[in-house]
């Protein structure tokens, strides 16, 4: 049993990062959401649990052609990976589970070359829509043509600086900014729904204005921005990249102004702060899963918990055994309860994408 109200009360409002848009009192939002969901579920207007997930994130590879200072999952480090044949098998299982959407990510998914399109085709041919996440390094007209046949909620290119010297420093490779900017231009020019992802940190926090303008000129429909998450390489490099709370507050106020300025032209969205996000996830029925390059199945890309591995168990069996109610698992609740501010993620054990994930049963 867990006391959701207590979980909400544990949060002190001044400890929660400001959120735009809309400027919402996040605690109130949590309380209202829980109440509403409870009422709907009582009236049987909303499910308590789902027969299968609605969406799935596929981290198709751990390999990456960049070495970003803040990478949440430490892409690029050695990791045992599933074979192409095994990924095709997973795609077929997801089709059988009748999921709606798939996040294609990595590492860098375009490193899979033509195998990527074979996996995406299995999903696409069965009506699954994508969110595609790339650093843009390998994106050229040939790849865009192949990718254009699929349906997307959005197509995300990561640009972490308005200037090459900022982006290249953050991403660990000279010339990567030019590639990312070119990729973004190709995406919007081809009519795919371009979203720019921009992770705020010490090196780029002073250049938000220029970054937003650059995104608009490149034809982005949306820029998603927010401070890096204390996870993976961002934890290891936190002393280099961390920003002060005051700086961040100022940045968010600035983003609010820009949100109004660009209203109707380009969405400016801030990523949800993880403390709020984790509490929110407990309320709603579990609806997504994430599959790591080695086949581990997780609930999301924040929690250091796994529910199994595709090599040992069929996805639907795993979902029915534990997945569909996993966010209410005692160990997970206890873990989330101990994160009262974002910085607790630095002290807690296990730390996401640093320590070994815990298998919940």
């Amino acid at each position, binding site marked *: 049993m867990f006391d959701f109200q207590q979980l909400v009360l544990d949060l002190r409002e001044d400890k929660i990062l400001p959120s735009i848009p809309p400027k919402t009192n996040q605690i109130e939002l949590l309380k209202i959401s829980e109440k509403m969901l409870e009422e709907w579920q009582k009236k049987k207007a909303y499910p308590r649990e789902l027969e299968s997930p609605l969406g799935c994130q596929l981290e198709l590879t751990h390999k990456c052609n960049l070495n970003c200072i803040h990478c949440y999952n430490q892409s690029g480090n050695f990791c045992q990976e599933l074979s192409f044949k095994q990924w095709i098998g997973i795609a077929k299982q997801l089709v059988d589970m009748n999921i709606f959407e798939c996040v294609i990510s990595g590492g860098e998914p375009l490193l899979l070359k033509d195998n990527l399109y074979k996996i995406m085709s299995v999903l696409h041919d069965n009506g699954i829509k994508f969110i595609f996440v790339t650093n843009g390094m390998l994106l050229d007209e040939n790849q865009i043509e192949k990718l254009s046949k699929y349906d997307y909620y959005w197509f995300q290119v990561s640009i972490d600086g*308005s200037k*090459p010297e900022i982006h290249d420093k953050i991403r660990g490779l000279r010339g990567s900014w030019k590639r990312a*900017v070119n990729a973004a*231009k190709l995406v919007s*020019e*081809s009519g795919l729904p371009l979203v720019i992802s921009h992770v705020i940190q010490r090196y780029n926090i002073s250049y938000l204005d220029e970054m937003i*303008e650059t995104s*608009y*000129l490149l034809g982005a429909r949306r820029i998603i921005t927010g401070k890096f998450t204390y996870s993976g390489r961002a934890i290891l490099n936190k002393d280099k990249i961390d920003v002060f709370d005051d700086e961040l507050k100022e940045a968010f106020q600035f983003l609010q102004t820009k949100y109004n300025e660009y209203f109707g032209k380009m969405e400016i969205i801030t990523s949800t702060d993880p403390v709020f996000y984790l509490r929110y996830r407990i309320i709603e029925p579990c609806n997504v899963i994430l599959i790591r390059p080695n086949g581990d199945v997780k609930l999301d890309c924040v929690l250091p918990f796994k529910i199994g591995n595709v090599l040992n168990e069929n996805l639907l069996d795993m979902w029915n055994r534990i997945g569909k109610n996993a966010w209410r698992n005692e160990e997970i609740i206890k873990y989330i309860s101990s994160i009262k501010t974002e910085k607790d993620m630095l002290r807690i054990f296990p730390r996401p994408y640093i320590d070994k994930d815990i298998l919940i049963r």
Partner: protein
Amino acid sequence: MEDYVIEILSGITPKKLPLMKFRDENEFLIVQENTKKILVLNSTAREIYNSCDGKIVNEIIKNLGSLYPDLNNKKLSLDVLKCLRDLEKRDLISLRNKNEGITCDI
């Protein structure tokens, strides 16, 4: 703004999209967007919109530069690009590389 961003966008050919209805009124162009809103383009925006007749962005910037010779070239390029994106967001032009635009003689 980095010059490189302007540089890679300057080769795009903006194309007019079909208008539901429009009216020329003195220096203004009043158009009905596909979203059914009425939009008034001022003389500069109108000039830019009318230049979307097969010219690439760079040519549009040069044309406008001849009308406003005192303007700093980088500032002019940025303003033109922003205006083109604004027109795109209102479904008046397309900045895509596929053949979506049509020839419009206004």
